[in-house]
């Protein structure tokens, strides 16, 4: 195995004292503090949740939804591409024969565990059918139990895309 020797920094007395660096940092903090205090509307934060963010763009990766075909049937064909691509392995699919005659295969179960999901969007990229999207604009998801965070096929299908404002 190759071993890389990394030289340690901080050998000089000035560095060993730490204090000059700490004061340097505090100076920056203090500068921002006084600037913000003298001009509050300039501050880059808002009082969430009373104020809601207005900058959720179209490409924002929110909570997933499953899309539908023109005839209202589920677009997903249970190909498992999303589950294969998912780095968190949080998509749980069971396939079944399709009964509505639109195609051959559809999901019986399609669960996404939002507690495990890292919102990377790999599932959306992987889907060959444009059946899964993250354009709901939902950035905050609340539940009381762990089970509330497991989004089922029905919940995912009921969700709509965010209205473009």
């Amino acid at each position, binding site marked *: 195995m190759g071993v890389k020797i990394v030289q340690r920094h901080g050998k000089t007395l000035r560095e060993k004292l730490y204090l000059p660096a700490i004061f340097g940092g505090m100076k920056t903090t203090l500068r921002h503090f006084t600037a913000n205090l003298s001009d509050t509307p300039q501050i880059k934060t808002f009082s969430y949740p009373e104020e809601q963010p207005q900058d959720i763009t179209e490409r924002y990766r929110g909570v997933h939804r499953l899309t539908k075909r023109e005839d209202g049937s589920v677009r997903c*064909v249970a190909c498992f591409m999303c589950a*294969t691509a998912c780095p968190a392995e949080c998509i749980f699919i069971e396939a079944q024969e399709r009964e509505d005659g639109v*195609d*051959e295969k559809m999901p019986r179960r399609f669960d996404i565990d939002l507690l495990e999901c890292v919102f990377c969007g790999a599932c959306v990229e992987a889907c060959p059918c444009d059946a899964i999207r993250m354009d709901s604009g939902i950035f905050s998801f609340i539940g009381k139990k762990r089970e509330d965070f497991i989004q089922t096929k029905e919940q995912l299908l009921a969700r709509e895309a965010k209205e473009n404002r």
Partner: protein
Amino acid sequence: MVSLSVDGKRIEVRENTLLIEALLSQGISIPHFCYHPALGKDGNCRMCMVEIEGQKRPQIACDTLVKEGMVVRTKGEKIDRVKRSILEMELINHPIDCPICDQAGECSLQNYYMDVGLYESRLTTPKVRGKKHVDLGANVVLDQERCVLCTRCVRFTEKITKTHELGVLSRGDHSVIDTFPGEKLNNPYAMNVVDLCPVGALTSKDFRFAKRVWFLQSEKAICNRCARGCSIFVDHHKEKYGSEKIYRYRPRLNEAINGYFICDAGRLSYAHENALFDAQAMIRGKVSEYDYAEGKWLRLLKRYLGKTLFLISSSLGLEEFVRLQKLAKLYDIALSAYEPDRFDDRFGDTFLKCADRSANARALPLLGIDDTQEGFQKALQNAELIVLIGRHDVALILDAPCRKSVVVLDAGGMTCEEVELMLPVASHTQKEGTYINVEGYVQYSACMIANDKGRKSLLELLGTVLGDGMVRAQEIWEEEIVRLEPFQNLSFAMLSSTPRIVL
């Protein structure tokens, strides 16, 4: 021997070999649909084109015999263009259903497209449509649109099963595979066409939509449903938060025993294995902790020392036989492998299936284990504790006139209050072992699917009783089996080449 040059490399092969066989035997990949080692050449798909020096046009490797000094090119811009054009033609009417096709991931069309295809479609006319979901019978589903008309399936029913159920109907673009009117695919080996079909035209109804193949892990094993002992792959997967499950058995090439095929009964027997995975330890019909049940087995064994009969299954592994025999000798335990239901004449045929349903009964006479009815009856009279090992046909004992204590050490099965203890042990696909087939071929089954229920294998239980802790097949081979007369010329390492012994 003749020597030829392939892509600038010299290779030596036997005379009268087909060029495609020569190439494949050297590990050179050559796309092909219609050629199959078990079915021979047909020359209809043109996918196996190679360049041969001195010939004006590219030639098909499956219908060319090797010649001394032949100079062959399988790679290069020119030959790749030829392959790409043929592939493009194959795909003209192909539905490209990969997202819903069970073959995806092990499909020759997909693989060749990734190797030599990667073209932009030039198709502007609509594709010719076919029937999508034709139930051919015998668990085989046909998708006519996906078929590349290689006729492997047709030739299988002609040459191997000689049942002639399948044929090519219609002409040109409309050619399709189908059964003859009013007929169904109906033979005990029919599901092999699913493996033979290079694409997703023939898929298994049993495996339909069950799992995408890239999730599956394959383990090498031996089928234990009859005395042939066909080599198989066990495809299993443990889903996140789920437990291990077997999804299918597939034939594994073994020229000595089963070639490229297995019977449908063996293929579908994986479901039986799955059902065993959940068995629990039971004491007098009530569920018990495994550790407590194991302690009880040791206590019972001790209490009935000298008055015990081991009634063993003849389908146990060679290692298990040897260890059981050792234990029986040490503690004066009677040993019998009598099985009234061993033979099933309706099952046997002249191809692979054997009427003898035992996976390893050939080892019994070699080791001197008794399997006669008289031997069993005599041993039963003297015994007070009967331990059924690898079997659970308790009726055989419970029908006996005098009361006995019954213990079952098996992968699973029914228990009742009359059974003192049922201690589940690792099932066939959860344990390694060596099996001797009907012709004397010795095979090692390496499939050891982890069991998440914490149950032990029979070898582990025996290792504890014998106190030497030998639990792996290799140790037992090296320490004990090679010392036995019939196996002295063998070694554990030799098992991978399926040696044969005289029965």
